[in-house]
Each structure stands twice: as structure tokens, then as C-alpha cells.
């Protein structure tokens, strides 16, 4: 563990398209430029604002707010439904630009990514990273459109690069290195740091840490034993000093799908049709990632606010929609009829690499594999859920795959569906 600051020349470049969806919509439609804009997954009063333009943010609109609340703050707010193919195009352009500088590119979400310049500076990227940063901004404007703006942060590790990228929104470029680290942190609040929200702030406050500078000066022992009570404390100690602790690739542990019911007084038949659709969606995701599963969980939230969930690890693995639905129904049938179901979720766990390319000695297993492959091929050609359960046909038009906040793992599936 390092106790000193990382004095290496910054080699990590973080790119963040702030207000990404709203900016892309303003790029696509010039009449929306300079106006308060809220992008939502559905155009209903209770829909959540997934992106707000800078003009809307100036009027107090925040991401995560309900559309009705946003309209109270900004009466002239224009609401627009998400359009995944547009964002996917911009995402692809961003990835293409980033990969032209270094092979070590990792996308953290739809609108932000990291270029690691380690090992490329001697022969390829000899120019200062700030020059490359400004060139990326220009290329984004040239390739996508003149309204596109991005924040760029350059630092010795991922955490500080992200912090640098958030210093001057919406079109900033900042560098944090060991020379200006203390000065930069002095101008921030604890909650300005990525990963420090109210609860972590309270943990730090309880140890007498109220500012990022006090956080930086805190000993690893206090952070580990008193503030976070785990190794996370030591990670923070390293992270704040510019040492890399976030260069991790996380494997997929669970795959699932949730849905808030379109009808809060839905009869059992309707709930089952939504369940069938969620099972199909989960199966599609699993096969897309080349997994089969042995465990399945179903959860329900009732209108009264109560939760119910059930999970089971099976002896045999499964991958087909019909098997997921059969097993999910076994679990679903156990749920107490307390109230109307308002939220439903299906999660597959105990994932293992799919063995469907191995021909089985059991003819029934082979038939199931072939049938699933044939249906997937048809759906790939004509769009997802072209061939679907009759029971879930009703849900097909209601449950739409929407833009996820974080991961881009299923972006291709989303586009196929859109």
C-alpha cells in the first residue's frame, strides 16, 4: 500500500457526455436547442426523467425526478421519449474515436468511457493528453454534430479522472495530478466525490472527516477500521492518492428483468402474461451472453408496499424460454395473494457457460436446443419477440426494453428490439 501521492504523469483520460440523451436529442432536432428538455422512458406523469438538458438543470430539474415534479419546476419543459438507436449511434461513434488512440478502452456506461494511455505514449500518442483531449472534443463535433459536448478529465487513476471530468460542466477539460490534487480537492464537497453519497458521508462525518482534504489526510487505519469497516477504506486511501484500484472486470453473476405493472389492479392472468414476457427477455439475455443457469428467483411487490420473493437452485441447468417460464411459474404459484401485484421481477443465477453446442445423447434435449436456436434466428431476423409465447402476446406491446442507466452489456439486444 502506498502512503505517498502517485507522482506519475497522468495517463488516464475520462470522457463523459453529460446530459447525453438530452444533448443528442438537441443535436438531432435544432429547434430543441437552448430549451429545457427532459428525456423520459415513457411520456406519463409518473415517468422518471432519465436525462435533462443543461437548460432544464438550470431551472432545478434533476435526473431521477418524476416528470410531473420536473414540470412544476420548469413549466415550459419539453418532454421527449427515449430513442435508443440514436444513442447507440452516438455511443458507437464515441467508442470508435476512443479506440483510435489506445486499445485499452473501457466503457463505464452509455455515455462515459476511459482511455488508458499506458504503453502508448512513446510511439503513438506523443502529444500531451490535453491536446488529444481537445482533438477528441473536435472529432465528436465533426463526426456526430456541432451541438455535441463532452467533459474530459485527465489524471493518474480512474477515480481522479472522473472527478476531473466533473469540474467544469458542460464542456470542460481538466487535469488532476499530484501537483494540484490538494488544491482541487479543497474546492469540493465530500458528496462531489464519485462513490460518496449521503450514507458514506455520514460514515466519514462520524470519524470527524467533513471535507475531501480531511478525507485525503485520514490514515488508512481509520478509514478501514472506523469509517468503512472493511478493505474499502484502504481502497479509498489509495484512490484519493492517485493509485489505481478500480481497474476491475466484473463477471456476470445474475441476469434478469423487472417490470412495474402497467395496470395497478391487474388480474392474475395479466400478471402471468407479464411474467411470461420477463422470462422470454431473461432467456434472450442469457443466450446472448452464452450462459445457461441453474438458479431462478422471482420477486413481487404488492400495491400495499409489501415484498415477496422466492428462489430455488435446480439440479439441472436451463436456457430455453419455456424452461425459464416453467420454473418461474413453480415459484410464482407460491406467492401469497396479499394484494394487487405492481412490480414483478425474474432473475437467473448460478450462471455457467452454455453447453448447447455439444450434441446431447438425449434426443429431447437436442430438440429443445434446435427449437430455441430456430426461434432465436427468426427473432434476430424479424425483430425480438416476433415468435413469442401466446400467453405473453398481450405483454409484448406493454413491456418495452428501455435505456438502462448503467451497463451497456445488452445494447445490441436493445437495438434489435427497437
Amino acid at each position: 500500500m502506498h502512503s505517498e501521492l502517485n507522482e506519475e504523469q497522468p495517463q488516464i483520460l475520462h470522457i463523459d457526455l453529460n446530459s447525453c440523451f438530452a444533448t443528442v436529442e438537441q443535436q438531432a432536432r435544432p429547434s430543441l436547442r437552448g430549451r429545457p428538455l427532459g428525456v423520459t422512458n415513457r411520456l406519463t406523469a409518473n415517468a422518471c426523467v432519465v436525462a435533462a438538458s443543461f437548460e432544464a438543470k438550470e431551472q432545478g430539474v434533476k435526473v431521477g425526478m418524476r416528470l410531473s415534479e420536473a414540470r412544476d419546476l420548469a413549466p415550459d419543459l419539453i418532454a421527449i421519449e427515449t430513442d435508443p438507436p440514436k444513442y447507440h449511434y452516438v455511443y458507437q461513434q464515441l467508442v470508435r474515436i476512443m479506440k483510435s488512440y489506445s486499445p485499452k478502452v473501457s466503457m463505464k456506461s452509455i455515455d462515459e468511457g476511459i482511455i488508458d494511455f499506458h504503453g502508448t505514449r512513446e510511439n503513438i500518442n506523443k502529444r500531451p493528453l490535453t491536446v488529444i483531449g481537445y482533438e477528441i472534443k473536435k472529432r465528436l463535433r465533426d463526426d456526430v454534430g456541432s451541438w455535441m459536448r463532452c467533459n474530459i478529465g485527465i489524471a493518474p487513476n480512474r477515480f481522479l479522472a472522473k472527478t476531473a471530468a466533473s469540474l467544469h460542466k458542460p464542456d470542460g477539460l481538466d487535469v488532476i495530478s499530484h501537483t494540484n490534487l490538494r488544491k482541487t480537492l479543497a474546492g469540493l464537497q465530500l458528496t462531489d466525490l464519485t462513490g460518496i453519497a449521503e450514507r458514506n458521508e455520514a460514515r466519514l462525518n462520524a470519524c470527524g472527516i467533513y471535507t475531501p482534504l480531511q478525507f485525503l489526510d485520514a490514515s488508512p487505519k481509520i478509514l478501514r477500521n472506523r469509517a468503512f469497516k472493511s478493505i474499502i477504506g484502504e481502497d479509498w486511501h489509495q484512490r484519493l492518492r492517485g493509485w489505481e484500484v478500480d481497474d476491475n472486470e466484473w463477471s456476470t453473476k445474475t441476469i434478469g428483468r423487472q417490470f412495474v405493472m402497467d395496470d395497478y389492479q391487474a388480474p392474475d392472468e395479466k400478471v402471468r402474461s407479464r411474467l411470461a414476457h420477463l422470462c422470454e427477455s431473461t432467456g434472450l439475455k442469457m443466450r446472448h451472453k452464452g450462459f445457461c443457469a441453474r438458479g431462478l428467483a422471482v420477486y413481487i411487490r404488492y400495491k400495499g408496499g409489501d415484498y415477496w420473493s422466492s428462489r430455488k437452485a435446480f439440479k439441472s441447468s436451463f436456457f430455453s424460454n419455456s424452461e425459464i417460464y416453467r420454473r418461474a411459474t413453480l415459484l410464482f404459484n407460491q406467492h401469497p395473494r396479499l394484494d394487487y401485484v405492481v412490480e414483478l421481477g425474474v432473475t437467473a443465477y448460478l450462471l455457467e457457460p452454455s453447453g448447447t453446442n455439444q450434441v446431447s445423447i438425449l434426443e429431447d434435449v437436442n430438440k429443445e436446443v434446435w427449437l430455441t436456436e430456430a426461434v432465436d434466428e427468426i427473432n434476430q431476423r424479424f425483430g425480438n419477440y416476433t415468435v413469442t409465447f401466446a400467453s405473453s402476446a398481450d405483454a409484448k406491446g406493454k413491456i418495452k426494453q428501455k435505456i438502462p442507466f448503467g451497463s451497456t452489456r445488452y445494447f445490441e439486444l436493445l437495438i434489435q428490439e427497437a
Partner: protein
Amino acid sequence: MENNVHINKAVNVVAFYFKNAGPAYRQAGSRLKCFPKRMEYDGRRVEFTETGLRHPVQKGKSLVHVFDMTDGNADYRLEFDAQNLDWKLVSIADAFRA
């Protein structure tokens, strides 16, 4: 409130095509770039002044190019089927003007 009218009709479009448009770093291997210039719809002629965004959309196995265009008064969404060379006016949005 937004006034978005869905049209979904075939239209005649005059488009310009440019090869190797843009700065040098984009020219290598670049394809023909298409820019709709004029559209005839409902007996009137619309002159486009700006391309908002052009993006491809996969429809099953076929690919169509979506153009978000403006004539300075309203926003138009056009689809170009590169296989059949057909243009379709998908929607017109206005009412944002004061």
C-alpha cells in the same frame, strides 16, 4: 407541448452525395455521405437548412438511415432505405417556436 405528427408516407427527396467529406482523419475509408436538400410533400416544397443527426437503424436484417432534418420552422424525420433507394417522411414536429 410538443406537436409531433406521424406521417409515414413516401416522399420525393433531392439529396446531395459527397465523398470523403470532412477533415483528413475521417477521409480514409469513408463512404459516400448523403445530405437531403429538398423534399416535396403534400404539394409543397421544403428546403432543408440543417441536418440534425443521421443514424442507421436496424429493422430486422435490413438497414435504414434515419435523418433528422430541419427547414428552420419545423423538424422532419426522414428514413432512407439504402437497398430500395426509397425516402419516407416519418414525422414532422413543430410548435416549439414562439
